[in-house]
């Protein structure tokens, strides 16, 4: 059975289509999610490349090192920006009307997740073109790159579920900092600038238990054609989805109860 022809599929597709049309008709909504990763890429890969000359920095190309970070960061922020869109839809009353009109209400989350993925794919294409043009090197096989894509898609889905859960609980754009802050914390306490071995102090401890670390390290290994701990990264991403799917589902129940 084609999932897109089921009631769930049709509703999710309609919501995703609407989201994409809103994005296309209002570039101001899509621009931040494209510009911010590019800006971080420019600031980190451009300004900090000398850090790669520090003793024991054992990664071949700093631009590639930062490209992978920006890829994963944009996967997460793609979900966060979708959370803003959901909160805005609740504030304007559209999401409530959708709750009344949709037979399968979880299709709401499915539709927003599809739109979040489309948004992230656009950002990844732009970031990849810029990264390759500015010196990033890809030594991994097609299979390795597909695994990076799978990790990024899973992170994007988990972030969308988390942001949906928050947006449906608060149903106002004023909750934007609450949606953004955990994402910012999880991103910045991963090995952003240097490999984990070179991080010192409390961030080193936090990075060890930060789920973002496993996904980031696996993707950085895959892109240079030296896969390591990919299964761990996939497992961590799947675990994040398992936790956040419940978070999104209970958020939807709260929104339904609020009427």
């Amino acid at each position, binding site marked *: 059975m084609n999932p897109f022809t089921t009631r769930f599929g049709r509703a999710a597709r309609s919501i995703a289509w609407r989201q994409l049309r809103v994005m296309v008709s209002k570039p101001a909504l899509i621009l*931040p999610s494209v*510009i*911010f990763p590019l*800006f971080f890429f*420019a*600031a980190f890969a*451009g*300004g*900090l*490349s*000398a*850090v790669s*000359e*520090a*003793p*024991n*920095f054992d990664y071949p190309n700093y631009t590639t090192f930062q490209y992978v970070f920006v890829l994963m960061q944009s996967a997460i922020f793609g979900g966060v920006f979708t959370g803003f869109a959901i909160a805005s839809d609740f504030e304007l009353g559209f999401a409530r009307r959708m709750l009344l009109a949709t037979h399968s209400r979880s299709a709401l989350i499915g539709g927003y997740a599809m739109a979040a993925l489309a948004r992230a794919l656009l950002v990844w294409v732009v970031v990849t073109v810029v990264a390759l043009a500015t010196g990033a090197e890809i030594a991994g096989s097609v299979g390795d790159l597909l695994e990076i894509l799978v990790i990024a898609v899973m992170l994007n889905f988990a972030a969308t579920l988390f942001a949906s859960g928050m947006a449906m609980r608060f149903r106002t754009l004023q909750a934007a900092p609450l949606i953004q802050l955990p994402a910012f914390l999880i991103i*910045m*306490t991963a*090995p*952003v*600038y*240097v490999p984990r071995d*070179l*991080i*010192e*102090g*409390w*961030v*080193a401890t936090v990075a060890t238990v930060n789920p973002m670390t496993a996904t980031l390290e696996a993707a950085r290994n895959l892109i240079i054609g030296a896969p390591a701990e990919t299964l761990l990264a996939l497992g961590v991403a799947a675990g994040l989805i398992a936790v956040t799917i419940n978070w999104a589902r209970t958020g939807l129940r709260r929104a339904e109860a609020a009427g």
Partner: protein
Amino acid sequence: MNVAAATLRAGLGGVNVGTLTQVGYLARRSITRTVRQPILIIPSLVFPLFLLAVNSSGLEAATLLPGFPTDSYLTFALGLTFMQGALFATMGAGQSIAGDIQHGFFNRLQLTPLRGPALIAGQLAGVTLQGLIQGGAYLIIALAFGAHLEAGPAGVPVLFALSALVGVAFGSLGLAIGLRTGNGEAVQGVFPLMFVLLFLSSGALPRDLIENDWFQFVATINPVSYLIEGFRSLFVTGWDGEALALAFGVALAVLAFGMWAATAALRGRMERT
């Protein structure tokens, strides 16, 4: 406090005394508002300190690079922290005046004999206080976590003076934007630009250690680099006359531009309303 009555009373006095009194009342209101609304101060304390903590752990390896000026990245990164705090002042000042306009307080002020310069100076008092509180907090916390101030105790007043001056300078820019737009969201919209100025600077590495030519060029023409380097010189070098002169010079230039822009925006708004 009845600011309108106070400014009326002030308006009856001599020109100099009147303006000073008006500044005093508005400054007291601005300071009271800053103190009563911790939400205005807390983000400007927490975010720069969080970034300082993350950067000082994540980039400690940079201190091993040949030519890096100190063996403590925490000490090195403090310049960026002070500058980040000043950029929050831009938002604070802009949002305060935009709030006054949106809530009608500004219109009521215009019914009084309040002078324009008094309004601008008074509004900036809260920003100055915010800059001093931030500077004190950054310094105490950083020293407690092992940073060192190479300039010694005599460097503290210079650090506070530069912190307050940079805060007022960027606050005047925020004020200009707030007066021009009269909208808090529009003021928030400027934040990404401030973020770009902060990150495309010599905040993370000394300029001579930046490898990419285009980034080094951008950091060199970015005035924020010189402000950061002024703060940093007190922590890392001790007394570097050139770095301090450039920092104070750039801050004064930003202040002059900000005051001109704020005065022009105020004049335009008074004509419109």
